């Protein structure tokens, strides 16, 4: 470990892509033994800055010093040699190797010139124990759950004995308990003198763990401050450059008769004996820790996965749903969690994406009516103010928020009576978020029943009429909005309060 207290000093970093200036003149100083948070809206330049630090991008201008020595990193391996380790938001692990082999990937210990598997397993076990993770080092990585894989990713970075460790949204797939464990680990690393860069959207966590906070906006550095002297509201103000008063406006609507009724539904593995109902004009929140079975439940209701027990009723009549097409006929629509993987077809235009579920209805003798197709796309582009307002634009060229609006439009074109939204605002910026909430508000005002899955408790509390909390595949009874608080939801989700 270097004697210098300054682990990292980046000066005047700019990065230009053809036509876009992603970073302009950013300065960042990180001390050893401190947690330095970087916050900013999507597109503020956080990931680009970290890609410069990890050697993925060469900056257009600017210098980087590590422990007082100026360095030039051209590829990730350079940064790793200098003791910089990334914990990526998208998991960077190899599913077909074992946990131990993943932890030592790229730097496996050798004995007689061969991979020393015994040493890897032994050392991995030690590290995983230190991290408090009960994972078998010899297990095939692809057989682990996502949150276990996330812990392996952290173990991998830690095992490399880094000088600087960068965590990009490390808690996005962790439960509250696991997050607490992670924070214990981070504090331990801090004591060992490791410099920690912590990127997160979750400001509450930032305030809890960080010593310093740097705020980025539009590729520029706005400020670096000690975490003690800043509040979440102030961070938001600096991030967006304006005061945000009510993040989650709630439009009142008339709640009518039950539309969707789920009775004792289970798939024998991810969720069991789940019962709830959603009424027209109502937003039902479905929350819980990641891995509680929310997404699997939603996918089963929509026919993307198979339920093995229980039944589903729509408008009082039992329905059998074996495919998304059947769900659509029953009036159920589902906006999936992972927009890039399950939401959009990137090679198609906005118009072609929007009409996908109803294509057959727009067709005669197999031929798609272009005029009906265009009319539909025009309507939603206007109604949801999709930017740019050009339905012929390839959907992959739109921003995340606008893509999400297009995905929601896609399902409204099927005129469902129940809309299930899975993390609809994850990864979209504050402005688009408010707009998506407004759209949802309008839909329930029009009598639709909405099930909203969200991990973001302020969002759940702000938008939903009633909330079902899931834990380990079981659903608690719905709780009225008035009786809810973040603390109460967490208590239900972690099992501190019995359902």
């Amino acid at each position, binding site marked *: 470990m270097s004697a210098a207290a300054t682990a990292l000093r980046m000066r005047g970093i700019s990065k230009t892509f053809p036509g876009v200036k992603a970073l302009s003149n950013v300065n960042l100083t990180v001390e050893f033994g401190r947690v330095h948070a970087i916050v900013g809206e999507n597109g503020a330049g956080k990931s680009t800055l970290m890609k410069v630090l990890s050697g993925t991008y060469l900056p257009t201008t600017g210098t980087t010093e590590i422990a007082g020595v100026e360095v030039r990193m051209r590829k990730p391996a350079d940064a790793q040699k200098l003791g910089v380790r990334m914990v990526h938001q998208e998991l*960077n692990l*190899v599913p*077909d190797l074992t946990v131990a082999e993943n932890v030592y*990937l*790229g730097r496996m210990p050798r004995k007689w010139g*061969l991979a020393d598997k015994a040493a890897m397993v032994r050392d991995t076990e030690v590290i995983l124990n230190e991290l408090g993770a009960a994972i078998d080092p010899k297990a095939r990585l*692809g*057989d682990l759950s996502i949150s276990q894989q996330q812990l392996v990713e952290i173990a991998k970075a830690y095992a490399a004995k880094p000088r600087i460790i960068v965590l990009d949204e490390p808690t996005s797939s962790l439960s509250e308990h696991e997050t607490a464990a992670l924070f214990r680990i981070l504090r331990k690393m801090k004591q060992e003198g490791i410099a920690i860069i912590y990127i997160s959207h979750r400001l509450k966590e930032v305030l809890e763990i960080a010593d310093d906070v740097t705020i980025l906006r539009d590729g520029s550095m706005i400020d670096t401050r000690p975490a003690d002297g800043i509040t979440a509201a102030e961070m938001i103000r600096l991030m967006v450059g304006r005061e945000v008063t009510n993040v989650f406006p709630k439009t009142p609507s008339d709640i009518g008769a039950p539309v969707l009724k789920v009775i004792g539904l289970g798939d024998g*593995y991810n969720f069991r004996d789940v019962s709830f109902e959603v009424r027209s004009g109502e937003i039902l929140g479905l929350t819980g820790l990641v891995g509680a079975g929310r997404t*699997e439940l939603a996918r089963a209701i929509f026919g993307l996965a198979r339920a093995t027990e229980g039944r589903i009723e729509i408008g009082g009549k039992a329905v059998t749903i074996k495919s998304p097409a059947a769900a659509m006929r029953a009036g159920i629509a589902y906006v999936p969690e992972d927009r890039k993987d399950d939401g959009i077809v990137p090679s198609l235009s906005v118009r072609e994406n929007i009409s996908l579920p109803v294509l057959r209805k727009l067709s005669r003798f197999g031929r798609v009516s272009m005029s009906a197709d265009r009319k539909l796309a025009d309507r939603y582009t206007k109604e949801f103010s999709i930017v740019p307002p050009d339905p012929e634009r390839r959907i992959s060229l739109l921003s995340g928020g606008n893509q999400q609006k297009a995905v929601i439009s896609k399902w409204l074109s099927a005129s469902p009576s129940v809309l299930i939204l899975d993390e609809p605002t994850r990864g979209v910026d504050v402005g688009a978020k408010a707009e998506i909430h407004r759209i949802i508000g309008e839909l329930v005002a029009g009598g639709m029943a909405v099930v909203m899955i969200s991990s973001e408790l302020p969002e759940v509390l702000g938008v939903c009429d009633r909330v079902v909390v899931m834990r380990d595949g079981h659903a608690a009874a719905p709780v009225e909005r008035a009786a809810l608080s973040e603390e109460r939801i967490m208590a239900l989700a972690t099992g501190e309060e019995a359902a």
Partner: protein
Amino acid sequence: MTPIARLVRYRVAVILGLTLLVASLTVPGFLSVTTLSLGLDRSAAIGIIAIGMTVLLIARQIDLSVGSTFALAGITAVMLQPAIGIWPAALAGVLAGAAAGAFNGLLSVVFKVNALVATLATMLIFRSVAHWLTDSQPVPGTDIMLSLALSKIYLEIFTLRSALFVGAILLLHFWLTRTVAGRNLFAVGSNADAAEASGIAPGRTVFLAFVFAGTLAGVAGVLQSLTTNTGSPVFGAELIVTVIAAVVVGGTRIEGGRGSALGTLGGVLTIAALTTAMEFQSVPAYIQQVVAGLILILLVVLDRTVRHGPRTHAAAGASG
């Protein structure tokens, strides 16, 4: 692990055992040393190529041009005999195979052409060069006696090339499971981005895998030419199906990241046993094809459908 899952996992051994059992019951003298030796020798060419293909498939690549490389290397080895002598010519043949592999690697790694398309193109290119060089005529070698020497049987069962095949596949098994480079190969095939982020160079790994596959196709081609004392531009035209079938029957996944050398050995032996047994019974070639095709499909379907227990959406996504 349930008994069924275990059966599926060691399906190659099961199928090989069944094939040998049925063959020994129906074909008189099938289990004799002579028959086994013959079968092993005949499968050596396929087997040596399959070694290279195993490595490529694990790296999530494929080489359709191995049959053409096989012919080209053999022709080089025979045509250069009068000029530089038998052994230097043989070496030149192997090098021609390596060069062919390097060309595939170049297309795939540097020019980023999908391996399927790239090797589809080079399959045509190498085959054309083979015809070009020979004027589409078989070329005779200079030493007829050499082919007899190469067919000599050692230890009652091995010929030079079948010994080479078995030795090489054991080495490959050791390399894949024990060496760092072998483990890195799996990493590249399973998740190239993660491998790269961990400091492994996927491009280099893939390039070397292509060179390796080309070299082994070259070795097989040279041995074939020396054994038959002929270099022919039509050699190996139908090889590719058998090679891929043998490797895939052995449990190596065409989507990369999973595979084993011993599995490939099992796959090659299964196909060799089947072919030999059916030929002894005078089963027409087209029926042999049907049987081989059915086994391939059956094993792959088994692999896809029998999984242990239900999975979460996320885990299924991560491994799929």
